[in-house]
């Protein structure tokens, strides 16, 4: 594989990412899926990079899940999004940073629609005015949270306590990167590196010492797909997608998977359990599965944050093999202690997947 070929494509897809004064909008599902990811992002931006990042207590879902699940019409979605912009305008910010890839895709879709159809924008302004009395400005810059971490990957590397390196062998960890479909498949120019060879996660992994694996089904969807997963009868389709990816990445023996979307890490993590229970197959070494992380969690690990502080105890596939490989110190005894020191309880052991 010719890396220079990829670099040439990456050059074609550079996007502008604001460097400070962010208005952060959380995902509606990520706090349940991976509770430490978003707080880790805020901690990195505030404490490590000393950025001005603000969250409004009144912001809501972008309706992306409802929109992609066919229950929220586009006009409603646009008006809800207009309200987020109004909150941002009121708070005096211009740079929007959504945590969720689907939100990011939907914000991009809405802005693109308004750009091409100003009459739709006028209508939405009217709707919002009638419903809430609010006015809004269009954001100056929209960057996904992974874009922001990508932008500051070198700064993070400079502060790094650990690297994506197997300390026992000295070799880079082999990392599978998985990009959420809505990050750039709809608007390739809006993603760092475009749609076919997105660079946003690769940039982080390489900067932090790891080595990225390019496997044949890299571009395939994780299978979440909203309607696929939300309807139980369709879940076979959803898990089939993840299964296809695992089968395809298996020969490369990846050490870990890094993702930038709410759904992908959830499904790539949990489906490993379901697959193992259904057909007895696991993908990592020693029956432990391939650990799956969000980019914020990986950044947190690199910066030396306590793994239990960034929420790694709620992962299905155990994170310990990676912690050990990276030489990260952790206290097994505190794994299931909550932030308040109270015992959270230990999850039931799967019958196949080892921890």
């Amino acid at each position, binding site marked *: 594989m010719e890396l220079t070929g990829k670099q040439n494509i990456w050059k074609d897809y550079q996007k502008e990412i604001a460097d400070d004064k962010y208005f952060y909008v959380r995902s509606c599902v990520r706090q349940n899926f991976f509770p430490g990811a978003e707080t880790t992002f805020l901690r990195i931006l505030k404490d490590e990079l000393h950025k001005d990042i603000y969250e409004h207590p009144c912001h809501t879902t972008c309706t992306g899940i409802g929109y992609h699940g066919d229950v929220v019409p586009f006009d409603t979605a646009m008006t809800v999004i207009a309200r987020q912009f109004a909150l941002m305008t009121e708070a005096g910010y211009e740079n929007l940073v959504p945590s969720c890839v689907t939100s990011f895709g939907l914000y991009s879709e809405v802005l693109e629609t308004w750009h091409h159809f100003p009459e739709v924008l006028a209508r939405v302004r009217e709707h919002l005015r009638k419903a809430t009395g609010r006015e809004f400005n269009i954001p100056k810059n929209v960057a996904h949270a992974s874009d922001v971490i990508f932008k500051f990957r070198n700064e993070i590397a400079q502060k790094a306590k650990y690297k994506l390196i197997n300390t026992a062998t000295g070799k880079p960890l082999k990392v599978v990167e998985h990009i959420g479909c809505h990050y750039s498949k709809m608007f390739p120019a809006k993603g760092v590196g475009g749609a076919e060879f997105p660079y946003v996660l690769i940039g982080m992994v390489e900067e932090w010492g790891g080595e990225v694996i390019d496997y044949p089904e890299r571009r395939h969807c994780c299978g979440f797909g909203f309607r696929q997963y939300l309807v*139980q*009868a369709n*879940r*076979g*389709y*959803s*898990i*089939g997608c993840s*299964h*296809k990816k695992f089968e395809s990445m298996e020969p490369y023996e990846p050490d870990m998977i890094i993702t930038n979307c709410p759904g992908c890490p959830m499904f790539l993590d949990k489906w490993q359990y*379901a*697959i193992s*229970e*259904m*057909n*007895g197959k696991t993908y990592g070494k020693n029956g432990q599965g391939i650990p799956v992380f969000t980019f914020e969690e990986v950044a947190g690990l690199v910066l030396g944050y306590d793994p239990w502080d960034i929420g790694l105890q709620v992962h299905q596939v155990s994170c310990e093999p990676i912690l050990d490989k990276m030489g990260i110190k952790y206290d097994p005894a505190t794994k299931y202690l909550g932030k308040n020191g109270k015992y959270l309880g230990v999850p039931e052991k799967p*019958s196949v997947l080892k921890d």
Partner: protein
Amino acid sequence: MADFGYKIQEDRQINYDSNDRTLFYFLKRVEPSISLCIGCGTCSATCTAGQFTQFDLHKIMLYVRRGEKVHIANEIKKCMLCGKCSLVCPKGINTRNIIFQTRKFIHSNK
């Protein structure tokens, strides 16, 4: 094994790497004209069986070529061997013989 109320969905792709194409190689040997098919569908359009059943000769020939064997044995029975397909084929393929030979192959491989 656990029952979650759903299963890992079967892959729908034609797996060209693992499919068995022995029937096609057999037909190529005994009726080389099969290679000339361009899937124009004239045979299917004229086919008597095709007017009343799902039987579709040009598609069956494709399934044979790709090594997709699932329905072939059942489907090929539906042909009435009238020979109209051979009459109309623009590529002059001996479709009737292909059907004969396919049946023979399936029969002898039972």
